[in-house]
């Protein structure tokens, strides 16, 4: 099997939400001594992007996304110990879904990819209050805070969080994502960046922390 075939198999496993296939293929990849990071990026992540696109086009729905995320997660768990992680953390990222919103699939993907890229991630979970964000940044002094929101009803809370974060530490970069928001919304509320998928979010974080 060529490495491109392995990547493709990983992609297919995520798209079809087949965790048996994704884990077996991850083990094959290790046994072939393929680069674990490439397997995540070229294989699993690509699959997740396809699923995200299908979701946007309303061709798949949340249960499928969840199955795909699970298939991806389980394969990542197998590949992670083989990642060439720099023993120094590249930085700390605080993540949370804003208050009133419980859609955390995207946020979980960002978390996975951030960890794979060597960041320390503090995951506050879903429906996170402004105070919880503030308490967390006081405790863990992150370089980046990421907020997400899938619903227009919850995205309106973002400016408040941004103001509170800036008050604690003006140097912290704040990025937003999720179905409800956009680059122009990010510009409007004074966020430092926006990304429309998890892979772009990690690249954005890298740019913001100068890694």
């Amino acid at each position: 099997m060529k490495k491109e075939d392995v990547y493709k198999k990983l992609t297919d496993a995520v798209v079809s939400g087949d965790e048996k296939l994704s884990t077996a293929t991850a083990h094959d990849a290790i046994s072939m001594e393929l680069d674990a990071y490439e397997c995540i990026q070229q294989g699993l992540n690509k699959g997740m992007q396809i699923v995200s696109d299908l979701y946007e086009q309303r061709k798949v729905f949340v249960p499928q996304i969840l199955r795909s995320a699970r298939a991806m997660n389980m394969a990542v768990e197998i590949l992670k110990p083989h990642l060439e992680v720099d023993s120094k953390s590249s930085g700390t990222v605080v993540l949370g879904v804003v208050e009133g919103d419980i859609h955390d699939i995207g946020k979980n993907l960002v978390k996975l990819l951030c960890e794979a890229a060597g960041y320390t991630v503090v995951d506050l979970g879903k429906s996170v209050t402004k105070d919880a964000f503030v308490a967390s940044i006081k405790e863990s002094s992150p370089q980046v805070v990421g907020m997400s929101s899938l619903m227009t009803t919850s995205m309106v809370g973002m400016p408040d969080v941004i103001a509170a974060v800036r008050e604690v530490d003006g140097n912290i970069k704040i990025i937003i994502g999720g179905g409800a928001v956009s680059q122009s919304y990010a510009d409007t509320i004074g966020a430092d960046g926006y990304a429309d998928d998890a892979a772009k979010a990690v690249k954005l974080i890298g740019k913001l922390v100068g890694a």
Partner: protein
Amino acid sequence: MILLSSGYHNKVLRVDLTKGRTRIEHTDERFYKVFLGGAGMGAKILLDEVPSHVDPFQPANKVVFATGPFQSTRIPGSAKWSLISKSPMTHTFGDSAAGASFGPSLRGCGLDAIVVEGRSPSPVYLWIEDGTVELRDASALWGLETFDTIDAMKSDTSKKASVAAIGPAGERLVRFACVVVDKHSYAGRSGIGAVLGSKKFKGIALSGSATPSFFDGGALDDIRKDITRTMARSDRGKELRAWGTPGGFATYNALDNTPKKNWDGSSWTEEGKEMETPHYNEALNVKPKACISCPLACHRHVSFEHPSYGVDGPGPEYETLAMLGANCLVREVRAVAKANDLCNRYGMDTISAGSAIALAMEAYEKGWFPPHVIGDLHIDWGDPAIVLHLIDLIGKREGIGSIMAEGAATLGATLGKEGYAVHVRGLDVPGHDPRLSYSLSVNYATGTRGACHYRGCPEETEIGGFLLPEYGVTKKPRFFEVEDKTRLAVIHQNFGAIMGSAVLCAFMFVEGEASISRYLDALNAMTGWGWSFEDLSRCGERIYNFQRLVNIRDGKGPAYDVLPKKLLTPAPDGARMGKAPPFDDMMQECYKLRGWTKEGYPTREMLASVGIEPSLYEDHFDLATMKEVIK
């Protein structure tokens, strides 16, 4: 005429540091069929080339970095490689194995082994890229801690290089100095890092992708896939990934398998709670880390902040929790993680460091230290700060650290308390108690590298129920029963000799539930030898006995088949209350099972029966007098 063996490169690199020259030497199939590789190969080189009068730190001592047949196969467990030399701890055969990706990289350079000889006038390291060999100046690296050394060697050579290096402990000849590989694996035991230090040899960086020709590459591929898949499904394997070797601590401690208070303590379950998983994982923020091509990923990467104990690096294994934690009565897992990190960076074995520190604590409590030696130090049981301080003193060889750097056995002898240092042949006993697993008593006493829980891991059968059906070990025996325990030790030692020479990680079998037969299929697919299990088993017995010959030749024979008194003294309470193995009887049984004389010496016939013909030793060793042949 050279008979090339499939599955090997049939090439060994000789590095003469005195002259600064390297050359390639050819090996062949007849040699590999007898000694397999790794620790088997190393024993042969020691018997032939390092006479008994040579001190481990003299230039005439040699260090062998050896692979076995498995290192080019990507089969799980094949990341391992063996490091062999005359040990500064035992003054005879010493070996240690590490993983990461160094073994496969060595093979990738088109070599089966590297033999480092002589002594360089100034610090050097070795860089091999595919077939190109270069000795480079290491003056700028001398004095650097291990992780910085590895980073520096990588940036000087290639980001893709696999690096094995020593740290300040090796340079300062701390007798239990180790070799650190790729910042997450260690050839810890036997003190060979110090031998490299004596040679002014900082380490080796390797990069290459050569593979030898295989007898049946297609079949080998199928077997590899089969082994990987079986192992990936193993429940014990999944547990190992989740908890690593620290997962054993709770059980081991509750059973008083874990040493406490320099082996005098018992019943420490409450005190040991912090070290147990899942607390270990939570407190240290654990991530699993794997050697190349391993589906199990038992290594731990930890990262946490703490005013005195912050660590970002490899986490402590079970042995370290036992030796630097429980055996010193230290309860705080973060402190043990810090102690582990310090040892890693100085480049020293945590088992022997823990043993020396525990003895120092006992000596301090009992007032054995002359006041001028101890100064204003307070070496109290359970004090994490003093443990860290002593590691520093050892690593720098300052003050009392200078004596402790000679190892617990020498520390005990210096204090006139020889019997209180817990070692066999000079190598400290690791964190498994023979008063619980009786088989360990024989296993330790006749260990060819000294007390070892891995070149023979019968405790895994007694405690964990690890079975070896091919060897007839089909059920977990009962604790404290004597019957069959000696035989269990002998079987495990023979199996351990295969692991050390093949070279394979025993966790594949102990935790990954891999089958020995399947690995034998792989060996046959590589080499075309067509070995039966009996052939393999005989090979293990052969290598073990050959290492024993080196022990005897070096004056470390049967007279050293003893256990420290502490390990034969029953505990007043706890899980093994009142129990101790009937050691003398078991040793007699061991000699009998081995086919040795009742004094513990192998005979000519016995040796021939396992394939050690007189021609393999008689130029260097006289079986009639059990002495070296002086030419």
